[in-house]
């Protein structure tokens, strides 16, 4: 391999790379849409979005850039019925924080990551509560925020298991390429 220039990227390989780069955003959006189907569990929508954004921000930040987070937040706000902008802000903040602590988080065991994610979930639930209060100028009931926190923390293992498998498969494909 030494001394030989890298072969120029063919069309197929470029397509492959693009597909892989877009994969996290597309799966996240797809999961969100599936969750919000009437037969699904619409109230779990923020939990799914939060789990996906957190996971990809920590393990594959290149594919989950701030603009993508913005898009996911917008999608969440439009699919759900929270005031517009709350989802965007929370997901952006989660992305920023996860990115900052990513070097620490990547080395931890799943259990520790889960615990930290639960902290994130509590923070986002509280932030959402505050934002809804400010935007509606009315104190909303506390129960939905608690439910959202519980759903976020509870859904994370399932999401993480699925995404870890996908992540590994992608990494294998990248090693081969």
């Amino acid at each position, binding site marked *: 391999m030494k001394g030989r220039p890298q072969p120029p990227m063919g069309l197929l390989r470029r397509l492959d790379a693009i597909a892989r780069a877009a994969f996290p955003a597309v799966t996240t959006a797809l999961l969100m*849409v*599936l969750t919000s*189907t*009437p*037969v*699904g569990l619409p109230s779990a929508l923020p939990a799914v979005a939060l789990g996906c954004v957190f996971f990809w921000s920590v393990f594959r930040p290149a594919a989950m*850039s*701030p*603009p993508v*987070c*913005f898009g996911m*937040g*917008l*999608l969440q*706000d*439009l*699919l759900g019925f929270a*005031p*517009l*902008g*709350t989802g*965007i*802000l929370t997901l*952006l*903040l989660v992305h*920023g924080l996860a990115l900052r602590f990513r070097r620490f988080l990547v080395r931890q065991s799943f259990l520790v990551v889960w615990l930290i994610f639960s902290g994130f979930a509590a923070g986002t639930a509280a932030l959402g509560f505050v*934002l809804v209060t400010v*935007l509606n100028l009315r104190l909303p009931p506390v129960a939905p925020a608690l439910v959202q926190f519980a759903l976020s923390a509870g859904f994370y293992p399932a999401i993480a298991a699925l995404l870890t498998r996908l992540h590994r498969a992608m990494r294998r494909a990248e090693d081969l390429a």
Partner: protein
Amino acid sequence: MIRLSIPLRQALSRLTMPVLIAAAFGTMLLGKADTVLVERGRMALADTLAPIYAVVAEPMGALRDAVQDLRYLASMRAENLRLREENERLHRWQAAALAMEAENGLLRRQLHYMPEAQASFHTARVVADAGGTYARAVLLSVNPGVSLRKGQVALDERGLAGRVTEVGNRSARVLLVTDMNSRIPVVLEGSRSRAMLAGTNGQRPRLQHWPEGQPPQNGERVVTSAEAGVFPAGLPVGVVRWSEGGAPEVELYARLDKLDLLRIFDFGLTGILPPEAVARPEPRPRR
């Protein structure tokens, strides 16, 4: 792709986050300022996703139906058993009822029993709760052609509700049996012993003055008594329940907390009435 120098690109990437957060706040303001736009955006997204939803709903619906079918099959056995048992019991009751009917016919023939005339009644809508002198009373709106009298009996669809106490041209007031001023002669159906039903302003009126040594039994049916000529005998009132304080109360059949229509019966009785009612000429001859 535009070629940028590395420091510039780093600076740009560091700038994205604050800019996007500012944009998020901007979106919030936009959502607050222009709700129509947000609504339109949501509907556009829903329109786009509707086919996906339809596709997903198909298998989910099928699965749910299958599960429901299974559960239904499982419950059918138990249901069948229960129905068979019930059918048997009902057959026994039917036999008993037929025997009673025959016996009743026989007795009637022997006694020259004259059945009571069918009581006529008017329905009236309840338009207001309480008001007036009493704590538990309702105001009825009466059609102009209908003439009510004091002392007529008001029943809802399940049982005794009260008596008419005041009559106007288009309205009448009914004193409910739960009012403190209400005293109703009743009969305990099991022991045939007389008692008074006294209102307490609470949900359940109390029983008073039952015969010595025959206390009302829990669960016994309470019906009106013809004593004093105010009520006909046998109107359903309620069921005896002993309270925690050791007082016999009556759980009424009538749902007095949600009255909407009352039937005002004219049994042609003029029992004990307030004095001025006696002076007033009767609009209807006594039967």
